[in-house]
């Protein structure tokens, strides 16, 4: 099957998005009115296709367009002779368009539609290899968990609309700036629920690592540019509304703090390269949420874009290594430096960005987050100063752990005894090179926070040295088992969700059997008995009928004679 047409289609879409977004990178937001639905009164939302592209939206749109295009190019080589390539390729395009819709729209319901389309796309793409039971399970899990969160978003949208009387995001933001906050805590907590599910934060974090049976390019797409990024973007977009509630901001900060450290520790203990990278995504997303919880949307989005670049690079590189050795287990890799030189160099840049090493973009964007937290410690933001201190300490700690696992993954993939491996393919390393360049080029013009930068470099250096030291000792560490089992947090879902569902189903079944079925069954029973009685009379034998008629006549005669005698 020819595959370049799909690349051409994706390139056209991406080019259109780029043409749309690039002029707004530095500009004021531009509004374009494309379509307004009929006004159907205040009770129903008015659907419109208005878009607002501000610099923040433009960045995320470019990220989504770029990564989707690179993933499409990469997939032409990665997917081998996959027999469902057509649906796969179109879903990537749909995924990209849905993400752009979420980012650019000014209408909350259009946003919701894009958000749900992404949920469906990720379900279908994670379950692309549906012959594998774990792919089916991962897809269903991703879909169900994000659905739970989507309910939060839907209710949040309705509450927002009822509170402010509009479903247009720009109007909401204006209104939130001027009026007294109303329903702020409810809206904030519902939004937190929505993004916690979509962006895989504690406690709804378990779907993301279980989505790993999906094709690796899809993992890159989901983790870097779409889906999980939508959660971060949603909060950044609605931040003026969201930050009116201190409760919601504090909740977000706590969730982010717990998630970033926990996920980073899980990443350290993984034995599978792809799964470790998945946990790393969870941890990095938490870092973005930490920035948002201080009210600094720019820092969060900056890290989102930078993370998108280096995490796409890492996942695509991981895919090259998986194709080369035929497995994603770290034990199957090692010494790939020689057989996969381009992958080695590009992924080195990616891991450096993940660990926050100068001069990669990861260093600058992470420092932006840390700086946002540091600024918030003065207590002037909505977030309390003490909370900000705690989150800052956790974030710094997380940077250290991040450096540890980045180094560990890097060394166990590329150093050591060479594993047997096939070579690289051009369509696969091309995107890697571009992303590696992006990881360095995006650093240009980034703000440098000297004090924070020095601290994070020190922490990263300590982490790298610790990782190298642990590697020499063969990674014999006691913390391994519970962390590799991810503290059994998933068991809660795996056990509780089916138990609750089955319990509810049994209850409903009992109600159905004893409360509702009784009536039709009783009716049927009665009708059957009645039909026996009537059926006994209706024997279809004329002589029986005649007997009845004669008997009846006799009765009438006897009756009238008796009455005549009586009177």
């Amino acid at each position, binding site marked *: 099957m020819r595959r370049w047409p799909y690349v051409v289609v994706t390139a056209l879409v991406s080019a259109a998005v780029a043409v749309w977004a690039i002029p707004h990178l530095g500009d004021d937001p531009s509004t374009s009115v494309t379509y307004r639905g009929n006004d159907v009164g205040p009770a129903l939302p008015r659907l419109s296709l208005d878009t607002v592209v501000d610099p923040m939206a433009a960045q995320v749109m470019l990220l989504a367009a770029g990564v989707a295009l690179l993933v499409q190019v990469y997939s032409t080589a990665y997917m081998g002779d996959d027999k469902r390539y057509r649906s796969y390729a179109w879903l990537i395009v749909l995924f990209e368009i849905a993400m752009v819709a979420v980012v650019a729209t000014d209408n909350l319901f259009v946003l919701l539609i894009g958000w749900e389309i992404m949920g469906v796309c990720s379900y279908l793409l994670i379950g692309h290899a549906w012959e594998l039971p774990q792919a089916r399970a991962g897809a269903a899990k991703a879909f169900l968990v994000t659905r739970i969160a989507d309910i939060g978003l839907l209710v949040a949208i309705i509450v927002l609309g009822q509170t402010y009387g509009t479903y247009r995001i720009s109007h909401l933001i204006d209104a939130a700036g001027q009026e007294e906050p109303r329903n702020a805590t409810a809206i904030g907590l519902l939004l937190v629920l929505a993004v916690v599910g979509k962006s895989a934060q504690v406690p709804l974090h378990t779907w993301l690592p279980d989505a790993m049976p999906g094709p690796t390019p899809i993992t890159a797409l989901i983790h870097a540019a779409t889906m999980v990024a939508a959660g971060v973007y949603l909060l950044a977009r609605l931040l003026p509304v969201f930050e009116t509630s201190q409760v919601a901001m504090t909740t977000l900060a706590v969730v982010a703090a717990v998630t970033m450290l926990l996920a980073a520790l899980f990443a350290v203990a993984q034995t599978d390269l792809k799964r470790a990278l998945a946990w790393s995504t969870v941890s990095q997303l938490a870092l973005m949420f930490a920035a948002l919880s201080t009210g600094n949307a720019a820092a969060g989005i900056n890290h989102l874009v930078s993370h998108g670049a280096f995490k796409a690079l890492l996942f695509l590189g991981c895919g090259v290594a998986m194709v080369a050795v035929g497995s994603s287990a770290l034990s199957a890799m090692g010494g790939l430096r020689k057989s996969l030189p381009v992958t080695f160099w590009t992924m080195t840049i990616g891991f450096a960005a993940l660990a926050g090493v100068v001069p990669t973009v990861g260093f600058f964007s992470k420092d932006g987050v840390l700086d946002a937290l540091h600024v918030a410690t003065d207590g002037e933001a909505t977030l309390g100063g003490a909370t900000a201190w705690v989150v800052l300490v956790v974030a710094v700690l997380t940077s250290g752990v991040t450096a540890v696992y980045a180094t560990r993954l890097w060394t166990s993939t590329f150093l050591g005894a060479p594993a047997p491996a096939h070579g690289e393919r051009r369509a696969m390393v091309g995107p890697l090179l571009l992303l590696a360049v992006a990881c360095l080029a995006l650093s240009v013009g980034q703000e440098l926070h000297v004090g924070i930068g020095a601290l994070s470099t020190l922490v990263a250096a300590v982490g790298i040295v610790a990782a190298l030291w642990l590697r020499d000792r063969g990674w014999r560490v006691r913390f391994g088992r519970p962390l590799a089992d991810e503290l059994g947090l998933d068991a809660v879902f795996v056990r509780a969700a089916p138990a609750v569902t089955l319990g509810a189903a049994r209850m409903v079944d009992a109600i159905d059997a004893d409360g509702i079925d009784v009536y039709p069954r009783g009716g049927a029973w009665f009708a059957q008995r009645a039909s026996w009685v009537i059926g006994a009379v209706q024997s*279809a*034998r*004329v*002589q029986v009928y*005649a*007997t009845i008629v*004669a008997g009846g006549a006799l009765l009438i005669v006897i009756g009238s004679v008796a009455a005549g005698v009586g009177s």
Partner: protein
Amino acid sequence: MPLLYPLLLSAALFGIGLYGVLARRNAVLVLVGIELMLNAVNLQLVAYDAWFAETLHTGQVLTLFVIALAAAEIGLGLAIVLAMFRATGTIDVDTVEREVEA
């Protein structure tokens, strides 16, 4: 002659005829039962006619009508029985019923 005797005879004839219609399985004997019942009625008509001693003798006239009717009825009935026998090979009413149902 008292009215009671012909009436008792008529009631006896009607009862025998009714029994024949209800209990017999042979179609010809069912028709015979019907014939008996009709004649029981005829007997009553004549008896009452004599009892009332009416100048127009409506009872006797009605009896003639009933005899004509009975002749037509038995002609038609036997024709049906004959057709039934030709079609099914039997004149047992139950057997015919079962075969028609089947």
